[in-house]
């Protein structure tokens, strides 16, 4: 018993010390820098050559697909659309583009479609496998015409979490990746509300919080600094979630 409390005391000292250390400037910037090292390594190893995420066989699809974060948005606008079966839902493509777009679901479905069975990995640790269908984001961006200054693509969402609007962003490497699609179907059915109806992003080489749900807008920007908390996403603005979520 005594030995156990000595061990507990030692680890408590360590965990308390580390928590304090993390609040100092140098340590917190060192902790943050590993994100750039990881992204740099991943860029070299395959991200830049557009390595594809594994695609699975229909037999591998998990029996259900867990919903996480917002699973039933109560924003009045969203509820109105949901009640109407999302008939009037529109997706805006704006920002640093030559031709801003406003697309209906029918227009999105009329574009060339990509169907992919992929594994979804949550930052918490769990995974699910589902089949997604929708047009590639690159087709939308090519149609709108990206301006030269554009560096990031921001995803605008209809849902609020804890009172704040959800949003996310990726760099152009992931925006133009062939598996990055605007999905409107999961496992052959229109997206369920808990999985982001009527539209959600698939960013297959990154963790689940990058895959913005309840998508209303796609915006090309030169910098993320002036958007919401300035860190490029809802979870990135809260706590220390990394913007590059490939790990």
């Amino acid at each position, binding site marked *: 018993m005594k030995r156990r409390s000595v061990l507990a005391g030692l680890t408590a000292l360590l965990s308390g010390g580390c*928590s304090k250390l993390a609040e100092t400037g140098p340590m917190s910037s060192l902790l943050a820098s590993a994100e750039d090292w990881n992204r740099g390594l991943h860029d070299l190893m395959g991200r830049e050559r557009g390595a594809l995420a594994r695609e699975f066989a229909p037999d591998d699809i998990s029996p259900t697909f867990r919903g996480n974060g917002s699973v039933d948005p109560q924003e009045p606008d969203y509820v109105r659309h949901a009640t109407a079966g999302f008939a009037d839902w529109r997706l805006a493509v704006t920002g640093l583009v030559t031709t801003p777009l406003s697309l209906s679901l029918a227009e999105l479905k009329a574009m060339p479609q990509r169907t992919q069975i992929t594994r979804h990995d949550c930052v918490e640790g769990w995974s699910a496998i589902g089949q997604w269908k929708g047009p590639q984001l690159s087709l939308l961006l090519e149609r709108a015409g990206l301006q030269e200054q554009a560096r990031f693509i921001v995803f605008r969402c209809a849902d609020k979490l804890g009172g704040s609007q959800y949003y996310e962003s990726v760099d152009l490497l992931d925006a133009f990746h062939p598996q990055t699609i605007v999905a409107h179907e999961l496992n052959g059915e229109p997206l369920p509300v808990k999985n982001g109806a009527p539209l959600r992003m698939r960013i297959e080489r990154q963790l689940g919080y990058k895959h913005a749900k309840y998508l209303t807008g796609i915006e090309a920007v030169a910098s993320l600094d002036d958007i919401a908390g300035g860190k490029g996403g809802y979870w990135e603005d809260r706590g220390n979630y990394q913007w590059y979520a490939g790990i």
Partner: protein
Amino acid sequence: MKRHALGTRLWHWVNLICLVVLFMSGLNISNAHPRLYWGHWGFAPEDAWLHITRFPGWATIPGYYSLASARLWHFLFAWPFAIGLLLFMIGSLANRHFSRDLVTRRSEWRWSAIKADIAKHLKLDFEHAGSKFNFLQKLAYGVVIFILLPLMIFTGLAMSPAMDANWPWLVDMFGGRQSARSIHFLVAWALAGFLVLHIALVLLSGPIGQLRDMITGGAKMEDQP
């Protein structure tokens, strides 16, 4: 030459710090979803093969539940952990630490020799002439250095969706991302078990001298034949 080479000592202490921070931040990460599965996918309680206990704040880094902050600690210390192991391996091949001290001889694998080694251990007799390590030590260090530590790195990498796109064979080798996550957890506890045993044996075999030698390098040893 000294009992422990400078590279061995440096790696030993850097590796200890890395392992402790990785283990304690790992327990914090485990608290985010305390269930383990086999295969490619898993999320529901009924699919889990293990429901993990919630680890208390005194055992985790940071000392309160924060998945985001724990991930920052985990990914920062993974770098010196992996690079350190690689450099130690290259150095130990070059200075013949592996071939001189860790490689076992055929005679050591004889059951009678193993039994004698176990009996000596139980009597807390750690004298062994002729070689730096006895058979059980070689076995324990060999398993840790060549199996458990590399497994931690590779199962860790296999949990990254970007790495799975870059190196699909890696996650397949473990039978899926959730299997890799389960193995990562099991091997982490195996290493924690090794640490406890290692410290216990240091305490039983003259801890002051052992610690001193692992810091200063210890007395010069005669070259082994």
